[in-house]
């Protein structure tokens, strides 16, 4: 690849959405909706979407409440997913109440939690709380309390 540009004129502003592979859509959908209260916003199925039909995939979209989708779950109907290309992703809890609510629901659901950030070198602001857990496919999710500025 021959690259000529030092600094793009238009650059990425922020990480916006993430689309993870899962092995059982119903199981994962129940998990994410119950634990994080995510809202189901759309479904792309091989019987509704040409792209999904061609790629042998089915995608369920979830919204955090502003954008159409922020987190999506995808099942590949031919290939097997694994945990060998992603270490973790982080979800920012809106506030103290949201953070505590997620933590309480995780406990009630019997999900083992691990306190603190997952990666030792990751930054933590003073007083900022974090914990980690795994979803049904063993994807690591980090939950951080967003601090009001």
């Amino acid at each position, binding site marked *: 690849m021959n690259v000529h540009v030092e600094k793009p004129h238009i650059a*990425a502003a922020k990480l916006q959405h993430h689309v993870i*592979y899962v092995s059982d859509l119903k199981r994962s959908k129940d998990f994410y909706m119950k634990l994080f209260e995510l809202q189901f916003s759309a479904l792309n199925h091989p019987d509704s979407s040409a792209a999904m039909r061609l790629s042998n995939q089915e995608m369920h979209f979830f919204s955090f409440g502003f*954008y159409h989708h922020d987190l999506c779950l995808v099942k590949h109907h031919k290939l097997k997913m*694994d945990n060998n*290309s992603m270490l973790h992703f982080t979800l920012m809890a809106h506030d103290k109440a949201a953070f505590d609510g997620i933590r309480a629901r995780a406990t009630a659901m019997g999900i083992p939690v691990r306190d603190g950030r997952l990666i030792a070198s990751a930054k933590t602001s003073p007083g900022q709380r974090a914990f980690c857990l795994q979803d049904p496919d063993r994807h690591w999710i980090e939950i951080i309390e967003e601090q009001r500025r």
Partner: protein
Amino acid sequence: MTAASYVPPNVLPPLLQKFAPLLKRKWFRELVLMPPTLTRRRFSNKTEDYGVFQPSQIASIGQLSIYVQDIERSRRWYEQLGGLRHSRTCEQESHPFKPGWSIRCCYMSAAEHEECLVLVEECDPDGKVTVPSGMSFFHTAFELEGNRLEDVLAFSDQAKNAGFSRNYGPVRHNSEPPLGDGETGGNVACYFYDPDYHNVEFCGAMDTIENYRARYGETKGSARA
């Protein structure tokens, strides 16, 4: 180090990448969806029929860490294509959940999002860097500065002129010509494979509660099938 040239099984072959723009043609989508149409299994995505856009417990995605074979190679790619900036690269540290393994982390920031991406070299107990499988996530998406259709199209041209090959796009994930590919969300997007074949979307103008209703009013998804 020399990175292994592993191509994950979900990567779109170059030949199929050339045909992917056909998804922007309604006749092609109808042809692909003919089997469920004829067997009456076809349905619309019905986006606006779902009870969405209420306040949520989650504000945003804060960080993503992905395995890479060569931090320097990946760092250059994200800097040169996406305009991300290098925040810091750390010394080797213990793997957070694999005893005896280690990781080295490079933290990258976007214009409005500090340390949003972590490039991670994972080493097995023999010190060998692992090869990412490509099968943990389908893609990840960055919103572009400006966040308008024009910004994504300009970014797409900018990337092409700089020598980066798109694997898909620019498209708009709705059914409106000329960019619409029949998908959902309304975001204008272009997709690229990074050096480890992680599929990375750069997008803008995604539907929100406000602009979704501005476009479709109160028309239900079933009425747009």
